[in-house]
């Protein structure tokens, strides 16, 4: 069945369902992981991502970063000459041990780089336990 025959059979709703089903290409961003003092730093290259389209989830020790990137045609009706990279959403996950304090994770997005600061959990202070004469 050609596409037009399918469209006619299913109506315009199926057409939009088909386009909705096509996912934007998904890219794995490069990351630098560093440690500085009491915190872990993750720097991810997310050029072209929208600052409010970045989702950071920390669940069960896994940190997942997803960023939405809108296609950015410079002008309509351009002829491509050179195509060295594609444009699409970013996604990457990291398994972080429980030495990170999830409540205090901070994120900053500037110039297409997402910097995550993961402070290490404060060590449990050691306590002296008094022995009672029972």
């Amino acid at each position, binding site marked *: 069945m050609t596409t037009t025959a399918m469209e006619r059979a299913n109506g315009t709703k199926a057409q939009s369902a088909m386009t909705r089903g096509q996912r934007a290409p998904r890219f794995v961003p490069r990351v630098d992981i*560093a440690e*500085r003092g009491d915190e872990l730093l993750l720097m991810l290259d997310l050029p072209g991502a929208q600052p409010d389209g970045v989702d950071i989830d920390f669940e069960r020790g896994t940190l997942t970063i997803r960023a939405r990137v809108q296609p950015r045609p410079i002008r309509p009706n351009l*002829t*491509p000459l050179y195509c060295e990279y*594609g444009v699409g959403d970013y996604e990457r996950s990291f398994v972080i041990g429980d030495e990170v304090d999830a409540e205090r994770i901070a994120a900053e997005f500037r*110039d*297409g780089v997402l910097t995550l600061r993961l402070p290490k959990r404060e060590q449990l202070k050691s306590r002296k336990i008094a022995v009672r004469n029972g």
Partner: protein
Amino acid sequence: MLLNRLFPSDPFNELRREMDRAFGAFLPRGAWSCGVEAFPAVNVWEDGEALFAEAEIPGCSMNDVEVEVVGNQLTLKGRREALQGEGVTYHRQERGIGEFTRVLTLPVEVQSEGVEAVLKDGVLTITMPKAEKARARKILVKAD
């Protein structure tokens, strides 16, 4: 390498990229040598009036990048610093640091005075109006 960028989440590309990275480690550590690819990757388009180039240079601000156009050559230069400060230990480094230079030969000559470059969220967009003689011109077909 083109396939690398068009289908990046393909497992075979992961393997290819790991191999590139493994061999890249033995090459002299020049700028941005996160593999054996040229940096930055560039997309170029055209219409009748102008050429448009786009490159992804995350982590560079306006002061860190230079764009030069001479005749039909476009030069992109820039730098990105590593984390400064004491007591910084890197566990993983995939993003390149240092200086980069890339020279592209354009298919037509452009007017360097009319070139505009915009940098936003790590994406550099360059608009280059074509030189007069390179512009498309409509040719009237006359009836004989």
